[in-house]
């Protein structure tokens, strides 16, 4: 079997195994898995409204997935997407409420603010990695908590002691009447188009520019890249900055599209961590991210229907997602299994 085929088979098998484990857990805990998955299916494709909302859910997942995947391609593990997304969310909402400008200036400005905030949050671990060889995983985890507490404090200051900001001005909103009419007034917004454009941007950077070539080279081998005359440190910082910018835009989707405000949070949104799952499942390629985001976004939104329609706690979907990540990470075993199966076939 070719490596390309196994590369695609590993995620597919992982998803199937994840769903099977989910079914077993439902069965053991006294629920009917068929009812459960039917409720999940209807939660995703039930009517135009749910389809619209599912697509809305996929939007930030696309960007979070891109952020993780982009860093991965440069050999960096960005667990900080969550924090970068939160600061992006705040920055976009802040620009959205602070000034009122013509739409043509206001909306891009708010998006830019989110991207810059996310990029800044990615810059710190990037710089520390390049200058002091500090492992980016730990720094980005710490940055997540700093982001959470700092934005909560800023929201309090901006709102004069409250828990959420005002709603943003219409001139900064991504809201789309066209999509609303199309999907029975779901909250689907223009952000999905932007997110898909960003998928194209990532593909373009990685495949068609010198920068992308260097980033990938650094991801494969630091020393070889250095020897070839590339500035490894600059590339590490750049990779984290671009990754952070994608994540910040993911936050802007929530700030300017879905909620149109930012509220203080007791815990994380989870979108950033699910971004890791999206990127892994998508094998860190732009096209793969679309598939990963579609799958996990759909699962996440469809799960909301499970408590009502089948009486099953929606956390079952989170369990399935965790199991899928586990299997994708353990791809070595699946590959080994596939290899043995292929050999057996040949022997016959």
């Amino acid at each position, binding site marked *: 079997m070719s490596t390309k085929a196994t590369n695609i088979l590993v995620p597919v098998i992982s998803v199937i195994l994840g769903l099977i484990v989910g079914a077993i*857990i439902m069965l053991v*805990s*006294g629920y009917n898995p068929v009812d459960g998955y039917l409720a999940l299916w209807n939660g995703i494709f039930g009517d135009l409204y749910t389809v619209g909302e599912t697509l809305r859910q996929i939007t930030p997942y696309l960007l979070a997935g891109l952020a993780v995947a982009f860093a991965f391609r440069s050999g960096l*593990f960005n*667990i900080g997407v969550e924090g970068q997304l939160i600061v992006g969310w705040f920055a976009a909402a802040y620009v959205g409420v602070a000034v009122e400008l013509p739409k043509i200036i206001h909306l891009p400005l708010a998006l830019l603010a989110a991207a810059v905030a996310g990029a800044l949050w990615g810059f*710190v671990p990037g710089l*520390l990695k390049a*200058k*002091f060889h*500090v*492992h980016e*995983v*730990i*720094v980005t*985890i*710490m*940055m997540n*908590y*700093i982001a959470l*507490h*700092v934005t*909560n*404090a800023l929201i309090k200051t901006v709102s004069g002691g409250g828990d959420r900001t005002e709603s943003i001005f219409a001139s900064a909103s991504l809201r789309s009447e066209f999509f609303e009419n199309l999907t029975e007034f779901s909250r689907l917004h223009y952000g999905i188009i932007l997110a898909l454009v960003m998928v194209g941007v990532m593909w373009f950077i990685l495949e068609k520019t010198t920068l992308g070539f260097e980033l990938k080279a650094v991801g494969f081998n630091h020393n070889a890249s250095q020897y070839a005359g590339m500035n490894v440190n600059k590339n590490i910082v750049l990779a984290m900055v671009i990754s952070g910018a994608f994540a910040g835009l993911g936050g802007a989707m929530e700030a300017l599209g879905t909620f149109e405000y930012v509220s203080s949070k*007791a*815990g994380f949104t989870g979108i950033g*961590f699910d971004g*890791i*799952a999206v990127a*892994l499942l998508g094998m860190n390629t732009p096209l793969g991210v679309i598939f990963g985001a579609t799958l996990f976004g759909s699962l996440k939104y469809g799960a909301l229907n499970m408590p009502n329609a089948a009486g099953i*706690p929606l*956390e*079952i979907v*989170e*369990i399935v*997602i*965790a*199991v899928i*990540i*586990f299997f*994708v*990470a*353990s*791809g*070595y*075993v699946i590959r080994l299994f596939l290899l043995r199966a292929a050999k057996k076939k040949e022997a016959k």
Partner: protein
Amino acid sequence: MSFLEVLYFIVPSAIFYAAPLILVAIGGVFSERSGVINIGLEGLMVIGAFVGILFNLFFADTFGNATPWLSLIAAMVAALLLSLVHAVASISFRADQTVSGVAINLLAIALALYLVKKIFGKGQTDFITERFSRNDIPVLSDIPVIGPMFFSSVYYTSVLAIAVAIFAWFVIYKTPFGLRLRSVGEHPMAADTMGINVARMRYVAVMISGALAGIGGAIYAQTISGDFGHATINGQGFMALAAMIFGKWHPLGAMGAALFFGFAQSLSIVGPSIPYIQDIPNVFLLILPYVLTILALAGFIGRANAPKANGIPYIKGQR
């Protein structure tokens, strides 16, 4: 409030918040010293907290006063079993250890909440009735100044945490087991040629980290929160991870760092009633442990070096 009164107020509360962090950080030391990165500490703590509360609720009538302590054992076993998943993935299946840890974290919180909803029909458990009690330690609490600061109305769980830290230092630095553990984390191939079973050492280390994280989670839930919900642990495991790094992968260092982080945490909670500290915006106290960890890693507060083979799966015969 005089300075001494402030100390009497804040030192016990710092130790109180530090106890779970110490245990979990020590767990992290064991795992990472053997060469397995354990980001899953948070999830292991979550499972410990959940099982601890669950056991306490169900068996409070049967066991009475002893319930919280027995809950610790139940939590330890549960987290140990979950840590085996991480061990299998990262040692036998050669998975990326960070990714596997992330999966453990997602799995633990999802599984715990799923079961909470299944059993209680709502988002959090009931409050426990049997809690750990505070005791004066005999003799020691009568010492002036130090007595009221460290030894009166303490939780025995805090004593346990500090005892475990000292014991862990002894095990890691003064026993053959500890030497093997460290060698497997620094240079597994050399250890292997000397006849040490690398995989087995790593399995044991990860299981120890699971057991300690489970106990830590159960202590946190039974002393600080009193029930279990989605926000019960909320980053304590990551803070323990930070304490482990800040303590430079050394058991006593990790304990010191955990005490300091406990101090920062308690300041952010009791700070508003203490002069001078109440003038500092709360957010600075909240982010202090994380900022310090980053600074420590960057080498501004002494160099922190991870075990050499940390995070690298050992594959026999590979150079």
